[in-house]
């Protein structure tokens, strides 16, 4: 860690904060409790942020939450759509995270084989 890196961090964090304004079509929620962190949730989140930025997806916001009760399948990411539909992805790593960004967030196509449980259809 040096000051150069920290300066870059500052810029990046400010871009992320700017991205949060307005309501978005997709909200990505990363579970970041102790077990999530130990399983690599931070790297998953970072990969997703980078990938979202690289692809220029503006209708997506990334948020972080605590434990979600899925400790045994961490890292866990939940994607909430503006329509109310929710999809939970589990056992993630950087590669899978990239795939989710490319498929679900960019093309709107769920990655069924990474998802857990049944998606909740809006009433």
């Amino acid at each position, binding site marked *: 860690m040096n000051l150069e890196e920290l300066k870059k961090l500052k810029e990046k*964090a400010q871009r992320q904060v700017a991205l949060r304004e307005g309501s978005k079509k997709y909200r990505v929620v990363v579970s970041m409790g102790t077990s999530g962190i130990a399983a690599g949730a931070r790297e998953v989140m970072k990969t997703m942020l980078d990938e979202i930025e690289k692809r220029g997806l503006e209708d997506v916001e990334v948020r972080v939450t605590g434990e979600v009760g899925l400790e045994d399948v961490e890292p866990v990411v939940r994607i909430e759509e503006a329509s109310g539909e929710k999809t939970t992805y589990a056992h993630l790593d950087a590669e899978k995270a990239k795939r989710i960004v490319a498929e679900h967030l960019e093309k709107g196509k769920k990655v069924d084989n990474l998802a857990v449980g049944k998606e909740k259809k809006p009433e």
Partner: protein
Amino acid sequence: MFEELSLHILDIAMNSIAAKARIVQIMISEHAQRDMLSIRIQDNGRGMDADTLERVLADLATTKRSRKKDIGLGLALLRQTAEMCGGEFDVRSTPGMGTTVTVSMKLSHVDRPPLGDLNATILALCATNPAVDVQLHYLTDTEHFHFSSKEPAKKKVASRPERIWSGEEKTNYEPGRTQKVKRESTAAGCLA
């Protein structure tokens, strides 16, 4: 066990956010001359009473039995890391006022985990809640860096601020104190 200290920091700071903190201040100070690395995470969240504090600090073996919602292993893991690296661990908390977690370790200790990807940690914390002000103070023997997620782009603070945190500093928490520290270091930045 976390492989990076920045993961510990993320974990502890997530507790602060879960405790409804508005300000989370992370101070990292690297003293090569004194061979000491200290990390302090201070928040103005809801704090803990003595019983809760005792419970979260319980040994690894007992946390499972006493595990309730919002009680986990984070602090116990951090204490283990600090003690393993010839350092100390301290938590002070006042209900309604906030919590301060302080750890120190020997900078040169062979078991000391690297600081790791602090950027990713700060980014993750900034993504938790826009209303939370995440502050980072990073001090070395010669330099000081300050970051706040609430502040628009500010210049780097080139000189050390007058107020330098040391391990002996009083830890009884006053509401609004974190903010005061922030203003002081910002002022130092403008003067520099």
